[in-house]
């Protein structure tokens, strides 16, 4: 089914030598539930690690930064009294009071503008959107004011602000609530954009974003909030930050590089394990962590090792993050590539409400595995 919905991948697959009919799943219109497949366990986790949900990690990051710097404050719809639409700000009002954790009226344009104004005046706001879909109401403040005022003011007005909230599709909330804005914000000079996957990513990147003197967009994922990850002892400390602009090899390999981000990292790891089991190949999974700036060195280093590249993301295919990575790979790593790079992306359609179609509109472990196997000419 995916072949009909993912034009970019479809074109690439028809160009490949071996044309294999996808094994027709009897569950054609009722794909198996994807829940629970992403949990990653570290059997040999070093002592001192603790389980964290992504939600807890974000909460801890916010609490630590509020504690550390009186200039930091959190604001958004329902972040205080209600503990946040997804409970990420739970307990912060009680702990820091209503001058630091602030509920707003239903006006994204209003509170984003206010937060940008406060940042231009020296505070370090953390501006929460119920979802990034609603940030479209205030995108002018993000793109034209937050991202550009330092430049336009001749460097006299820095804008230390963090925009955060769930990004990408969720479950059964239809097209207007199911969009991935990585490529939108990733295209804007003046913004930094990060997209965490694990609990450590979430904590380290959010803290880095709050401390960074520039406007940083933190693209979280609603489907990841409840996921549990082990958090290293170091990451549990309040001085833990992850540098913006550095990718992380989540799984080392020599046969194929998958560059991916956010929820798709976990899916790619699952696919990589399946590929190893079935075909004995080793897929390297590179967790981008940062969309802008992008860690080109890490991508090229991995391509030099594996000579094959596939990107996996849940954004739309056209002009997307995958398109950018493939372009960079071709510009800077063409001679190291042994096969045309491929993209696995969300489908080029307004996200369907129907559960079956929604699931088919975004990468699944099976799809990633299938396309990786094709790229490697294993099927």
């Amino acid at each position, binding site marked *: 089914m995916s*072949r009909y*919905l993912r034009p970019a991948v479809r074109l690439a697959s028809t160009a490949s030598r071996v044309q294999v*009919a996808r094994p027709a799943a*009897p569950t054609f219109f009722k794909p198996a539930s994807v829940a629970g497949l992403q949990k990653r366990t570290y059997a040999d986790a070093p002592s001192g690690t603790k389980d964290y949900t992504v939600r807890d990690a974000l909460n801890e990051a916010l609490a630590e930064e509020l504690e550390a710097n009186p200039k930091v404050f959190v604001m958004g719809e329902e972040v205080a009294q209600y503990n946040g639409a997804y409970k990420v700000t739970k307990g912060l009002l009680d702990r820091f009071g209503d001058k630091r954790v602030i509920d707003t009226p*239903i006006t994204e344009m209003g509170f984003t503008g206010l937060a940008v104004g406060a940042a231009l005046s020296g505070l370090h706001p953390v501006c929460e959107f119920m979802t990034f879909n609603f940030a479209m109401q205030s995108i002018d403040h993000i793109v034209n004011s937050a991202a550009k005022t330092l430049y336009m003011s001749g460097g006299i007005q820095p804008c230390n602000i963090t925009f955060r909230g769930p990004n990408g599709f969720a479950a*059964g909330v*239809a097209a207007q609530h199911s969009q991935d804005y990585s490529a939108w914000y990733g295209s804007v000079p003046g913004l930094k954009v990060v997209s965490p996957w694990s609990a450590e990513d979430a904590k380290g990147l959010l803290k880095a974003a709050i401390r960074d003197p520039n406007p940083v967009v933190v693209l979280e994922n609603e489907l990841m909030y409840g996921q549990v990850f082990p958090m290293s002892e170091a990451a549990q400390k309040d001085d833990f930050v992850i540098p913006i602009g550095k990718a992380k090899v989540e799984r080392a390999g020599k046969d194929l590089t998958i560059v991916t981000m956010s929820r798709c990292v976990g899916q790619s790891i699952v696919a990589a394990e399946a590929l190893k089991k079935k075909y004995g190949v080793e897929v390297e999974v590179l967790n981008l962590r940062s969309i802008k700036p992008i860690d080109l060195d890490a991508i090229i280093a991995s391509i030099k090792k594996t000579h094959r590249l596939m990107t996996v993301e849940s954004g739309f295919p056209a002009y997307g993050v995958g398109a950018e990575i493939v372009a960079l790979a071709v510009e800077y790593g063409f001679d190291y590539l042994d096969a045309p790079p491929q993209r696995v992306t969300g489908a080029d359609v307004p996200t369907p409400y*129907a559960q079956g179609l929604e699931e088919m509109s975004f990468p699944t472990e099976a799809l990633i595995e299938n396309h990786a196997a094709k790229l490697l000419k294993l099927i």
Partner: protein
Amino acid sequence: MKRIARSTQRPSSLLRPLTPSTHQPRLVPIAIQSSKTTTTTTATTQTVPSSRRHASSLSQRPDSSHVMFPGAVKSAFSNSMTFEEPSKYDALPTYRAVDQHGQVVDPSFKPDLSDEEVIKLYHDMLTVSIMDLIMFDAQRQGRLSFYMVSAGEEAVCVGSASALSSEDVVFCQYREQGVFKQRGFTLSDFMNQLFANHKDPGKGRNMPVHYGSKELNIHTISSPLATQLPQASGAAYALKIQRMQNPTVPPRVVAAYFGEGAASEGDFHAALNIAATRGCPAVFICRNNGYAISTPTLEQYRGDGIASRGLGYGIDTIRVDGNDFWAVREVTKRARELALQDGGKPVLIEAMTYRVSHHSTSDDSFAYRAKVEVEDWKRRDNPIGRLRKWMEAKGIWDENKEREARDSIRREILKAFSQAEKEKKPAIRTMFEDVYEELTPEIKAQMKELKEHLDQFPEEYDLGDFDGGKDSLAK
């Protein structure tokens, strides 16, 4: 600044002000294209009327008692420096025709409906309230993904809708099932949307409660808050232009519903201002139910509700008791007349209600408000109870009729419910449609590929659940 320079330099008309108008003749020649790029026009300049007002016509006359600045022409000069304090003004009154005991309190009020008509509208209110209870439970049982009830707001919706013409155009927020019901949306129509089956006019592409109906002139509900409001101004503008072009068409208005929370969005303010300045025949109907999910009105705004804002935009405005069916109806009837006066103008209605239930099935409101608060409200007043008392006092309703009505409504809802649950899903073809007005060559090719695949593996897929099966792809 030389005009010729402007037209050949980089496009700057947005950034640079025109030459000060005092030095300009009334007709301003504007170079529309540089000669290099001109292909269609023979002349490179054209004379167009300036839209700028002559400064001299508005300049301050010596010794006048009133302001003659362009921005405020009726203001008297004052020698006492006073800041206006909103708290010194009384809150705008709330109009009632019938009080919570069902007693008429407006001596000039005369019901303009026959007994049958009132009973029909009461029936509509009962229907949505019973449907809400059933569907809320159905969601809890996992039979649909999401639902929103309108308990407490039945009179606002049914009452106002009853005063509109069926030709009027309606925009809703999401809690206006009463409007849909009154305009003729059937129980099956509701259920088909909620279960996203093949009879859902939205083809199963939206979350539950995002109803829409072309026949009933109701735009499809859209999730991003308040976006319906400037669009309503635009739709009203279109009606106005339509009448200008063809005065024989019956006059129509747009009715736009929204919550007091949505009124904090910039779109609300933009909508009112553009409707006022363009003279758009739109009736803006605010359901002020005290909450926006967990945000109480105290956190939402500091002024006198939403009504006070209408005055600021130069819009005729009224506040009404939203639990009073008759008052809402009367007010909307009058608002509609006003909106059609003077070539068209907007009107604002703020209907005061209380959101009796949770925001949606995803919300637990007892996390932010006390149960007693809700119970108190329910006891004190309720739009259905109030109309019922009025009807009983008039002798057209009683306990028996109430019970019979409730029973039959319940049965009808359950019938429509189980029917809709059994209906087929939308045709597979709809998966490809409506992304664009026409199927693009790429989409057609994808559809063909799917059809060929299904032809090749007929045993693998059970398409019986989908309207028309594989044949829907054949067209």
